[in-house]
């Protein structure tokens, strides 16, 4: 697990690069599914998309979404578009340990998401390689397409990890 603080700015200066060496110290273990899991993702601002590239720390918004470029998938965050209340309205309260507090979670509670990268990772390993880095390329998804641009300021998260599984799961079954 790599915290957001441990991520470094990519060569394009508008991306984040995290070190996720695989196989790791424990050696290579067979897997049938692999996910990049991102927790604590902020969705308070405008919508944005994050593209993931394997072993391509220089990837940026112009990098083609192709296997050759290490492209592994993307996720989209549907944003709340800023705060519309009075001061403090969008401040996240601390998690309550009061069992009588039955109020629902704050609408801006950060979310968790994942991108399944089984095929790109297996391709990488099949060629005798290893995973070293994952580059996160955030792009704003503004209402007007002409305003869309690299937006590192939008991508706020808690941590990112690679999780592999061997048991059969939903992502193992080929699309029908």
């Amino acid at each position, binding site marked *: 697990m790599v915290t957001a603080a441990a991520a470094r700015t990519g060569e394009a200066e508008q991306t984040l690069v995290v070190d996720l060496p695989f196989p790791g110290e424990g050696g290579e273990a067979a897997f049938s599914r692999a996910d990049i899991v991102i927790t604590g*993702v902020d*969705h308070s601002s*405008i*919508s944005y*998309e994050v593209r993931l590239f394997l072993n391509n720390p220089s990837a940026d918004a112009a990098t083609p979404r192709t296997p050759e470029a290490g492209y592994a998938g993307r*996720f*989209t*965050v*549907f*944003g*709340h*578009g*800023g705060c*519309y*209340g009075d001061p403090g*309205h969008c401040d996240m309260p601390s998690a309550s340990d009061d069992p009588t507090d039955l109020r*629902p*979670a704050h*609408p801006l*509670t*950060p*979310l*968790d*998401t*994942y991108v*399944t990268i089984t095929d790109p990772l297996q391709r990488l390993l099949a060629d005798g390689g290893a995973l070293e880095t994952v580059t996160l390329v955030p792009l704003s*998804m*503004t*209402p*007007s*397409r002409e*305003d869309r641009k690299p937006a590192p300021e939008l991508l706020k998260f808690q941590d990112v990890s690679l999780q592999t599984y061997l048991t059969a*799961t*939903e*992502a193992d*079954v080929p*699309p*029908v």
Partner: protein
Amino acid sequence: MGIRRNASTLSAAEVEALRQSFNAVYGLRDDRGYGYFAGLHGLPLPVYCEHGTSLFLPWHRAYLYFFERALQDQVAEANLPWWDWTSAAAHEQGLPPAYLPSGATAPANPLAAGPVTLSADDLTLVRANLPGAITAGSQPVTRRDPDFPDELPRPATVSRALNSRTFNSFNMLLEGIHNGVHVWVGGAMSAVPVAAYDPVFWAHHSMVDRLWYLWQISPRGVNPPAALLDRPLPPFPMTVRDTLDISTLGYEYAVQVIG
């Protein structure tokens, strides 16, 4: 029993009923009207919609149920259609033809844009935070700025979600696909506060709801975890359990209905 049909195969009479129903609720300023229902999703505060949680699918099913009933109170024959954004037609044309602006000489198509009936203060904030989401002026309507049609989700992507074996996994995967369609449409649809003011919001979410239904009746479909079943879905007087069987909600999904 109401039948939700494919938006691309609606008859002329079905499109007309839908347009009449939208025009009717556009004209109502109380809690039967479009502004009331669109506002439940985002602005005006409070924001009720569920995103990034296990309630995403149940909450939006309840939302569509109450809005469709409101349409039918005005035009009994109106049903929410679903926009199959995975179809070959969508990957060539993009938005369903019934939702596109009409020609310069024809009456305005009420499915092409919806009125954004927010307070002056909220409109100011929307224009500042989300430029391009709504039009200018004191009576704004929603804008769109769609991406290339082939950027819409592909059937293989949806199949991966439909292969989920747990509710939470299916809910999360389908929500991610749904997010991509919101930003594909652009304009108001790209942001939570005003997305539901665009009439195509309802066709998009009808597709999402249909996919949940298809997964439910598939061998892999399972109910949400027991701990979720009695969770309320405010502001609707429903729990998650109440949303699970669409036959009890009075609608079903069809590709085409002949005769």
